[in-house]
């Protein structure tokens, strides 16, 4: 099995297990408050890291290039409450235009 399918199978199996764990096993016992406090910070921390690395990362170096213009445009679109698909299209289009003309 190549890397692509291994990722598909492992992420799929892991996610199915995580989603099923509460309803199948725990049967309604609430989590301790401390644990909930940790889990709610996971998504912002990981997503923040993904935004940063995908904007500035190029292999093992950090660069400022046309992607930053696209992400900034996406930020403005989000602030103006644009729908998700529009935000993504704006980011790609702005970057493509910047790359073609700058």
């Amino acid at each position, binding site marked *: 099995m190549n*890397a*692509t*399918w*291994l*990722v*598909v199978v*492992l*992420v*799929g199996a892991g*996610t*199915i297990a*995580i*989603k*099923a*764990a*509460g*309803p*199948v096993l*725990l*049967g309604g*016992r*609430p989590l301790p408050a401390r644990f909930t*406090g*940790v*889990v709610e*910070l*996971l*998504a*912002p*921390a*990981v*997503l*923040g*890291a*993904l*935004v*940063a*690395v*995908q904007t500035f990362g190029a*292999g*093992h*170096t*950090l660069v400022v290039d*046309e*992607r930053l213009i*696209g*992400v900034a445009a*996406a*930020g403005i679109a*989000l602030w103006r409450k644009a*729908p998700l698909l529009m*935000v*993504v299209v704006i*980011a*790609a*289009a*702005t*970057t*493509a235009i910047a*790359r073609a003309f700058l």
Partner: protein
Amino acid sequence: MIETKSYRDGARAVGPFAIAVAGFGISFGVLARAAGFGWLAPIVMSATTFAGSAQFAAVSVIGDGGTVATAVTAALLLNARYGPIGVSVAPYLTGRAWWRFVRAQLVVDESWALAAQGDGRFDPRVLVGAGLVLYCGWVGGTAIGSIGGEALGDPATIGLDAAFPALFLALLVPQLKGRRRLQAAVLGASIALALTPFAPAGVPIIAAAVVCLMGLRK
């Protein structure tokens, strides 16, 4: 508990979200294909994983040349929230274990939010109705994106490399309620950038997750 709402109520309420999720699915299909996943693997992944941000994370780590282990870990860290979310709906998913198992798979952020009745209780029929519609939108959108994405040409020329961070930004913004979460996002980003020159691809993302331990402090 009185159940006055039906599966159809959930399906109807989720309409606007489903359109957004289908669009999101199209972008996943296109980006996964651009990252070298082919056309079939993205569709199978959407049908089995059904959790957008984690799928994007896994695909982006692989696209950056990361290992399978780092891609899977990054994705599952993003899905860890479904642990406590699953616990919150568990009392309302009654019946046999296999039926609870099946319905638990339809829990995503949007179906969970719609099923919340505002008093800490959840309507299981709204959850299932909304979840099914979202599932169809997600898998269908992915198929359109991954099969049709080929026509789009070179990913960098059309700015697809900026679509990834824009998407993660769009997923991050609604998460930034309260000072703590904002701090977690900024710290996570800083740690990941600081490690990028030294660590193998994908590892900076996983390292950023340790930030969540500050949730232990009251």
